[in-house]
């Protein structure tokens, strides 16, 4: 988009002033627009509103669309939605793929799964009693599942750690913290989800319900932790954002001659992840190449 030539001059001069309602609406909605785009947005909408109020429909259209555009506030909905779109888009760009968004989504999912269990239990007191009753079982199962899951992915973690020489110390602390928070939320979420499924059956067959819940919890937690491991791998080791722009490099049939696999890059230019197509003796697992490193 070309830069507004008068972006520093606000308010913009119009040949005739806008009606008071439009001026108030513009003043109110400009607060919703991100600061960097506010002036340009204001100028665009002043022009659109001015043209609406001084518009004569072409003869060919005057019979087909006679009334809707002639309403004084026909553009109000567009103006509001445009401002809100800019605001949500700026949030989307700021949060897309971040660790914060990932944790917030998991937290939201956990809150959603708590509701059915709460309804089935009948009250907060009964729900708290249920949690207290299952607390020990949850802790033991969680420890076992996390241990098995970590043991299964130990090879990968060892390999990648060796290649993270250029990552800053803060990032090295943030990554395990993020992993721990994500793991905790996944375990709680899967436990609550299995509870939601099995709690209604508890009144009819407590033993079967408990057994089914254990199995469901185990299965869903393992799937969740597997996803968590993949998600962690596909994040920037510096800023923890999801990596983008996957591109295939090389051909598997030329594996003895050249590297083949997928490359993903950090949107902020912190580095690149190379994921080999086939495991070879010289390239066993994914490698993170930092920006400025001498790999």
């Amino acid at each position, binding site marked *: *988009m*070309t830069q*507004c*030539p*008068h972006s520093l001059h606000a308010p*913009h001069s*119009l*040949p005739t002033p806008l009606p008071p309602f439009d001026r108030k609406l513009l003043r109110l909605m400009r607060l919703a627009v991100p600061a960097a785009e506010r002036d340009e947005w204001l*100028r*665009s909408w*002043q*022009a*659109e509103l*001015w*043209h*609406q109020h*001084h*518009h004569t*429909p072409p003869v*060919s*259209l005057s019979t*087909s*669309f006679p009334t*809707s*555009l002639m309403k004084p506030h*026909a*553009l*109000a*909905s*567009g*103006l*509001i*939605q*445009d401002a809100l*779109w*800019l605001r949500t*888009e700026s949030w989307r760009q700021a949060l897309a793929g971040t660790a914060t968004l990932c944790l917030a989504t998991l937290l939201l999912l956990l809150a959603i799964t708590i509701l059915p269990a709460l309804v089935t239990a009948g009250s907060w007191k009964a729900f708290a009693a249920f949690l207290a009753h299952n607390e020990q079982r949850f802790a033991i199962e969680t420890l076992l599942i996390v241990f098995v899951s970590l043991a299964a992915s130990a090879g990968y973690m060892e390999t990648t750690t060796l290649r993270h020489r250029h990552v800053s110390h803060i990032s090295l602390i943030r990554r395990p913290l993020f992993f721990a928070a994500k793991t905790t939320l996944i375990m709680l979420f899967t436990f609550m989800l299995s509870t939601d499924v099995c709690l209604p059956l508890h009144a009819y067959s407590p033993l079967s319900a408990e057994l089914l819940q254990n199995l469901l919890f185990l299965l869903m937690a393992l799937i969740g932790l597997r996803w968590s491991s993949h998600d962690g791998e596909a994040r920037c080791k510096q800023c923890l954002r999801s990596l983008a722009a996957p591109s295939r490099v090389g051909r598997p049939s030329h594996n003895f001659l050249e590297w083949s696999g997928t490359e993903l890059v950090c949107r902020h230019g912190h580095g690149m992840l190379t994921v080999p197509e086939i495991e070879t003796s010289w390239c066993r697992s994914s490698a993170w190449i930092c920006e400025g490193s001498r790999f």
Partner: protein
Amino acid sequence: MISPRLSHSAALILKALSLGHRFGFDIMEITGLPSGTVYPALRRLERDALVQSEWEPEDEATASQRPARRYYEITKAGKAAVLAATERYPLLAMLVPEKHA
């Protein structure tokens, strides 16, 4: 290049732009779509690089005693998307008349 799949309203807006209708209010008038649909759709199309916008030259607007406005123009990728959309929605071409200078 793969053309993005457009919604019916986005295709209609893109078609209007390809036929020479260049600003939001004009597109509303020609398509009959409400402003709440047209303006956010234009933003999305611009974000996806299917259209680009530029300000009308200030002296042209001043000569006509009106404020300058932002004109939208369809890009090369947008033209490809319109062709694909016209195949998908065959009635699209009949819904929007060409702009007369």
